[in-house]
């Protein structure tokens, strides 16, 4: 009996940590929180409202709070208005005040208050060097509020997204941005520059492919110094698809003999090892299972699908048995998220949806239900996925919180995205 009980507990714990199992009933109560505008100094109203909107958005994305959508104005120092908020059911008040310094710095002051008894939970101060970086101010505030309540970490909100976008035929540029793509800064321009990929978790350098030389060439660029190092070049194409956890190895798709295949590249020794030999298309290699295996996209069955093999050789295993076009994937640990075309008509509606699978189980979890959902990418917590969603003529940045079973969309105004990494 005791052994049976232990077995049951073990099984329950396994299910609780498998993101492929969808959580349909959430018994946890989410504290009701309101973000209050506690004033601004030297900051235009538009920027202030955008900042507040971002902070509210971030707290919603944390999926821990029941965030009040209404606009509330309060004095930073006094308790005025607190009682009526508490009576309406608000439990937490985040008062936020921003001001711009003479030197251009943007400062934020935040008080987190228990609305029921008026207790000050904490007060914190933030600063950022330039006003246009205000999204990161909002993200840092949200992260701290989230951490205070012991909610699952959302520190990934501080990370930069790097993406390439087409500017005209045969031309593209590379930018870094915050996760909502509100802040954007161009870092590579001129010619065709594609497939940017962060080289490490510190995000101090990235790989990208340049078409401005005789052959497509892979470069490594230091974001802070601008130093550019040539990694490799190849006729046809060359792309850095994934980077190992320690950054010492990368998976490259290249075509030295006009044949696109996946290679394991050692960054220090510059040696490469061919991993795929199929005569058709093998691309988008991603490390899984402690970087011992890779998953990749291949059309060896006549249509793009996801396969797995060991980096040490051996046979190829088919991972997905549904859909007729699974041509984009991202991995984290044992999890793989991929984009699957589902419409019978090549160009019909509802054509690409996202799915989540694990290398350890047979479960498949559908993550989206409509539109064209592309470029899925895991955040470094493995519990959050960003993607780009197209519906009609509109596009949005999507954020999926896997364990909370929630998704959020941010209207996108970033141009035609070529590739994105997080």
């Amino acid at each position, binding site marked *: 009996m005791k052994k049976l009980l232990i077995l049951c507990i073990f099984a329950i714990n396994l299910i609780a940590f498998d993101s492929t199992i969808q959580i349909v009933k959430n018994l946890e109560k989410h504290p009701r929180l309101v973000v209050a505008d506690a004033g601004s100094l030297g900051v235009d109203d538009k920027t202030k409202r955008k900042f507040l909107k971002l902070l509210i958005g971030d707290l919603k994305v944390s999926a821990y709070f029941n965030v009040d959508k209404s606009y509330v104005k309060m004095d930073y120092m006094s308790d005025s208005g607190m009682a009526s908020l508490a009576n309406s059911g608000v439990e937490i008040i985040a008062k936020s005040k921003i001001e711009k310094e003479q030197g251009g710095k943007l400062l934020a002051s935040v008080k987190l208050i228990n609305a029921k008894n008026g207790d000050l939970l904490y007060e914190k101060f933030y600063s950022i060097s330039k006003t246009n970086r205000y999204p990161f101010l909002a993200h840092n505030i949200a992260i701290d509020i989230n951490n205070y309540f012991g909610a699952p970490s959302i520190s990934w909100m501080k990370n930069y997204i790097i993406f390439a976008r087409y500017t005209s*035929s045969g031309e593209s540029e590379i930018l870094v941005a915050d996760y909502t793509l509100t802040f954007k800064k161009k870092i590579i321009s001129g010619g065709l520059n594609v497939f940017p990929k962060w080289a490490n978790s510190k995000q101090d350098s990235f790989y990208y492919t340049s078409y401005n030389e005789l052959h497509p060439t892979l470069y490594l660029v230091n974001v802070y110094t601008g130093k550019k190092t040539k990694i490799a070049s190849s006729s046809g194409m060359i792309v850095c698809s994934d980077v190992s956890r320690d950054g010492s190895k990368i998976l490259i798709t290249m075509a030295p003999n006009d044949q696109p295949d996946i290679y394991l590249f050692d960054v220090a020794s510059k040696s490469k090892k061919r991993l795929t030999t199929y005569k058709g298309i093998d691309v988008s290699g991603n490390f899984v299972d402690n970087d011992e295996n890779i998953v990749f996209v291949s059309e060896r069955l006549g249509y793009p699908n996801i396969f797995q093999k060991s980096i040490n050789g051996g046979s190829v295993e088919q991972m997905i048995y549904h859909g007729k076009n699974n041509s984009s994937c991202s991995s984290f640990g044992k999890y793989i998220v991929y984009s699957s075309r589902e419409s019978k008509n090549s160009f019909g509606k509802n054509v690409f949806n996202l799915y989540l699978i694990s290398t350890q189980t047979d479960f498949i979890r559908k993550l989206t239900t409509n539109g064209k959902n592309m470029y899925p990418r895991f955040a470094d917590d493995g519990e959050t996925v960003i993607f780009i969603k197209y519906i009609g003529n509109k596009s949005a940045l999507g954020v999926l919180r896997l364990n909370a079973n929630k998704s959020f969309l941010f209207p996108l105004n970033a141009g035609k995205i070529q590739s994105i990494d997080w």
Partner: protein
Amino acid sequence: MRKSTILSFVMSVVLITGCSKKIPEIDTGGVSVNSGYDNSDTISNDSQIDGMASMDNSSSFASQEERIVAIQNEVQTVYFATDSYRLSDNEMQKIDQNTNIFNGDLANDLSIKIEGNCDEWGTDEYNYALGLKRAKSVKDTLSSLGVDESRMALISYGESKPICAEHNTGCWQQNRRVDFKLLP
């Protein structure tokens, strides 16, 4: 008087015939025109032959650049079906015609850059690989028809160089293509 009149007449004739514009002789049976065809071949694109016939030899071009531009205008783009890098019979015919241009006297000293392209559908890396496979299909066919492999180089631009930007089947078809660039 009579002698001078006759002399003047003769001189006039000489002058007139000497200054008249020479009509270039067009050698329709020689190497300046698609030498792979003989009278029994069916020509599917008459305008192409007419165009080639007007370029009788390289010395009629002011520069190599001009020659390349003239030849480039005769080369046909090759198109593909959705998600495919297979060549239809119609597209194979185009490649056949392009082979004759590439191996003709006007162009046989030039390199050929074969550029693979895709429509906006599909995903980033896969699209670039698909473009490359399209370029390779064309290269392999050209090679089998007698174009020297060492003259050819491949590149894939994926969906980065659309001919048109509308979101309809006609536009997508135009973008699923292989282009050729002739280089010195």
